[in-house]
């Protein structure tokens, strides 16, 4: 009989602790949707109620701000995915002059602390007398997503077989059709993953946004700026709903994946 070494037990222990660490706050948020807060803060447990779920959409400032966040994220991430995806495609598909310089330009925004990026954009808009608001937020979010998308997609594109494109061309396919039928389907998983992750980054950004937002409120701004004044429990309900959607999506895609696997085997 094989004895499990101490290292294995340690591995299980840390893994368990790691997942607990990740999830305890999430569970706390979900639990606090059932809290009946005393006063303006929903941070100390008082008593059980379903009111927050019944009146889930009454925290209208937060809902408006959340809508703004979604708008910003969709526009910024679409632009970032196009710009970044094209760059990744060019870098990994073709031999280019100035490749290292381009790599540096892509890495730098990721190694610049958010606070510096926010400050520098602030000075740009201040100097050009640009009124800060919705579109300056979109520009800022596009900026930190472009590098992220480009590098993620680049990593995914490495190792793809580009000779398929040549094969299509040899068989007389015009370039646009080759792109539509061969290149696009090859790169689409990497690009959509990058798009999803950049959406999450954008919706969650507070630091850069606080520099370029002017009077426009996004969801994180609304939460942070009012966290010292009031946190209504509906905020927790909104967050829990989003989390539920995410969990359902993860479970559904996993189940679909396992089914497909089973079908291929069987």
């Amino acid at each position, binding site marked *: 009989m094989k004895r499990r070494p101490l290292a294995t037990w340690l591995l299980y222990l840390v893994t368990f602790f790691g997942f607990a660490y990740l999830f305890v706050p*999430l569970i706390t948020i979900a639990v606090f949707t059932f809290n009946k807060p005393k006063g303006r803060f929903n941070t100390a447990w008082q008593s059980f109620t379903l009111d927050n779920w019944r009146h889930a959409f009454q925290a209208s400032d937060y809902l408006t701000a959340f809508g703004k966040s979604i708008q910003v994220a969709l526009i910024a991430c679409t632009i970032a995915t196009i710009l970044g995806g094209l760059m990744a*495609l060019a*870098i990994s598909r*073709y031999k280019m002059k100035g490749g290292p310089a381009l790599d540096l330009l892509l890495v730098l925004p990721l190694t610049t602390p958010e606070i510096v990026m926010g400050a520098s954009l602030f000075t740009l808009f201040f100097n050009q007398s640009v009124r800060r608001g919705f579109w300056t937020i979109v520009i800022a979010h596009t900026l930190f997503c472009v590098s992220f998308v480009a590098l993620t997609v680049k990593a995914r594109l490495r190792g793809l077989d580009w000779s398929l494109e040549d094969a299509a061309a040899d068989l007389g396919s015009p370039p646009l059709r080759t792109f539509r039928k061969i290149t696009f389907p090859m790169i689409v998983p990497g690009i959509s993953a990058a798009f999803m992750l950049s959406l*999450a980054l954008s919706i969650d950004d507070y630091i850069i946004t606080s520099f370029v937002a002017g009077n426009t409120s996004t969801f994180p701004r609304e939460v942070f700026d009012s966290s010292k004044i009031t946190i209504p429990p509906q905020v927790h309900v909104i967050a829990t709903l989003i989390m539920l959607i995410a969990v359902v999506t993860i479970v559904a895609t996993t189940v679909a994946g396992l089914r497909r696997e089973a079908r291929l085997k069987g």
Partner: protein
Amino acid sequence: MARDDATNDAGRRDGRNLPYLLVLPGIAFLFVFFVVPLITLFKISLSTKPDRLRPEYDFTWDWGNFSAAFTDFGSQLVRAFVYAALATVLCALIAYPVAYFIAFKAGRYRNVLLGLVMLPFFTSFLLRTIAWQSLLADAGPVLSTAKAFKLGGLLEALQITQNGRLINTQLAVVGGLTYNFLPFMLLPIYVSLEKIDVRLVDAAADLYSPFGRTFRRVVLPLSMPGVFAGTLLTFIPATGDFINAELLGNPISRRVIGNAVRTQFLNQNDYPAAAAISFVLMAIITALVVVYAKFLGTEDLA
């Protein structure tokens, strides 16, 4: 046949500029909104502010802002770097085993576990930090459990609590940072572990290498790019972060460099001072990253 070659060649020639056309919009965007603002910020850091109450400034090659950044904000800088370094080390210590488990032990549940690791991304990080406020609060679940088991004295002796409090301590700030950046450390490590050819590990075992040595000589070196990327993705944002310090810390630990930049910019309107602090922060980070890259040697971030 000959005609085919000709069209192919023509296609190649037309396509020669294609990659440059593809990267042009991205480069233009990064130039206008990243390079130009950084240069502007640098210029402002060398400017003086004639009127204390107005935000306007004059460019005067005034290096004084930089020495002022060190003398006035030195403690904020040190504090931010210490918090970030501690959080990064803790992240690596937790993330590596978890990533290892998911990559090698999770079997068919691998994707579910990966999805679960990403789940925090779908909840506002502010709300998660506020959740820590509830958890660590004086009457919160952690402290009341500890009290029920009469562990209060032990926690105090281990300096986990200060004056019987968990919230508003430096430890809470480091714990919050560790929590917030854990997925950013975990995912790159997982990616590099997953790429490892298991046959290498089997080969080492076949050659009678004990597990510890196989790990040290085969697995760990091959996963170093992931640790490197994860460290950067954790350490750099953590140095500039002020949310955790603000929501979980006390009035002293709240004073980190990110907060200094923000207050100088948005409340004091002292742009030259704020710009100088930003560049000092960036310079230190760049220096640390260069040294770190020399030791861990990898050119690949992604």
